């Protein structure tokens, strides 16, 4: 019955600790909110902490969870490698650890999420198809060296390689930030003017900045802009037609599935070792599905 859902074998309320990549990132906040909701429903105590994009902080937070002897840990990794010690330490302490959203090189008890490389592929593929496999692209990176930046770039580059007539004119970081994305796009417009056919921004924030700069310069109709995350702003922009496409990651599913898995493991029930939640391309055509 639901009243005993969140209890461990000794009948005490289950405690789950979660460390999130960054609570300043809208997508991650959405995942965390879903987890919170699900935890409330299941009568589980959820402790959410913010790693502020620092893998060191994340490792320390997991250490702290271990010291507190939580029943399960949910890890939303900052980094593939650098967050791995967190996994190793939890495993060594025999506390189940579930990776949500993205992977670490060390193998956790279970994984719920998707592969960021795939999102880069989806976005760039859309651009390539729109341009008919020919044209000039610019790419906006997130903060250099971060897992999401590396993987999204990797996916995009894979696709670019398949289209020899597509040229990467320039690529530069705008640090995941809308204002910086806007400034960068403004400067690119100065350098390349009409040569740019498409923009791939590694997240919606930068994408929205690029859209703003292009609109101001009166170039939006000539340039395709695609980004990743499908935040509400981006969906609105897709609706208006200013943003051509974004890539949707299912925050709701990632959040609730993560908690579900954690509870199952903690209670010693059977669970999925890997729950893959696919990315989906969002364009004007299928937009309705994502607006709620």
């Amino acid at each position, binding site marked *: 019955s639901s009243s005993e859902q969140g209890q461990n074998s000794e009948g005490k309320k289950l405690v789950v600790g979660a460390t999130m990549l960054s609570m*300043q990132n*809208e997508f991650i906040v959405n995942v965390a909110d879903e987890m919170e909701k699900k935890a409330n429903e299941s009568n589980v105590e959820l402790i959410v902490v913010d790693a502020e994009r620092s893998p060191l902080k994340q490792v320390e937070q997991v250490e702290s969870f271990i010291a507190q002897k939580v029943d399960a840990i949910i890890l939303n990794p900052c980094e593939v490698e650098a967050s791995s010690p967190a996994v190793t330490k939890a495993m060594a302490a025999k506390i189940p650890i579930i990776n949500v959203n993205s992977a670490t090189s060390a193998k956790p008890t279970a994984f719920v999420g998707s592969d960021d490389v795939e999102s880069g592929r989806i976005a760039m593929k859309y651009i390539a198809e729109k341009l008919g496999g020919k044209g000039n692209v610019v790419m906006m990176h997130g903060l250099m060296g971060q897992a999401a930046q590396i993987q999204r770039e990797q996916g995009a580059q894979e696709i670019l390689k398949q289209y020899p007539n597509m040229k990467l004119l*320039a690529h530069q970081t705008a640090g995941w*930030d*809308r204002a910086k994305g*806007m*400034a960068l796009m403004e*400067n690119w417009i*100065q350098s390349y003017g009409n040569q740019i056919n498409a923009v791939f921004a590694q997240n919606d924030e930068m994408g929205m900045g690029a859209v703003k700069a292009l609109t101001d310069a009166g170039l939006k109709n000539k340039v395709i802009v695609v980004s990743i995350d499908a935040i509400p702003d981006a969906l609105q922009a897709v609706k208006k037609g200013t943003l051509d496409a974004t890539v949707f990651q299912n925050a709701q599913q990632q959040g609730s599935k993560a908690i579900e898995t954690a509870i199952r493991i903690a209670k010693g029930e059977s669970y999925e070792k890997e729950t893959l939640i696919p990315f989906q391309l969002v364009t004007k055509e299928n937009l309705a599905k994502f607006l709620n």
Partner: protein
Amino acid sequence: MPNLCSMIPTQKPKSTYLNQVGESYKTRLRGLSTYGILLAFIAICIVLALITPRFLTISNLTIVLTQVSINALLAFGVTFVIITGGIDLSIGSMVAVTGVVAAMFAHPDTYPVGVPLLMGLLTGLLFGAFNGLVITRSKVHPFIVTLGTMTMGRGLALILSKGRPISNLSDEFNFIGGGQVLGIPMPIIILIVFFIICSVLLQKTVLGRYMYAVGGNEQAARASGISLNKVKMVVYTLCGGLAGLAGIVLTSRITTGQPNAGAGFELDAIAAAIIGGTSTSGGTGTMTGTLIGALLIGVISNGLDLLNVTSYYQQVVMGIIIIGAVVLDSWNQNRNK
């Protein structure tokens, strides 16, 4: 306690007869400190114009100015603070808080555009006044106080916005950062207006004079009947107000209130002020210098993008050019001394 300032040897008193000519010469050269960095700035502009024809176009220069506006507004505020011998690290967070607050009142068909403007500014002024209050009451170093309020402000912005960008702002509001008047982008107009206001305030008013006095020698200022606490309250509040304005311009420019906007802006603003000749020990600095400092940073950043320098190298080059410009300026000044 003996006053410690008395032990810090200042420049030797000069002989009256001998140096009058020399002094006025030196004084004139001293004034050139701003001039020196202006030369560095012009040199960089010339180099950029030679390397890339895209640099020296009206449209590109307009963009540079627009991009510079936010940093310049912040730098004006922090120039006041640094002139009095203080520092403000919380300006980046103030940009976020004020932007979020303004955005909360800027949805279409809710309030007239004056309301988000007022609320944003007011938030900035209050935040700044809070800084000033803690600094003057507690006598704790402004570095640590504003480091604390920087963290607090960031948290506040996240709490107010629940960690999500606030979008869907009215067109009137978005005009502030995105509109144009007579073909001139609004941020540039705001920049020019506030440059003039701040310059006048600093150079032509009693308050401005008191700022120099407090930063130049706090004890002597006090003994001249100046209330140190009042002057400090005013500069931190002003700095907050200008950060509020910058927050509004930024929010309006990107048409979203961003709780994580402005991170690191404090360092750029302080850099602009120092590059422009404001001494961190207080008592010197001008708004013109600060404006040139902000322009220097803006032009370099624009130029590196135009030249498509890889982002890794951009950072290295940016660092080298900034240090280089200031080093050249300081050598130049020392040689003339």
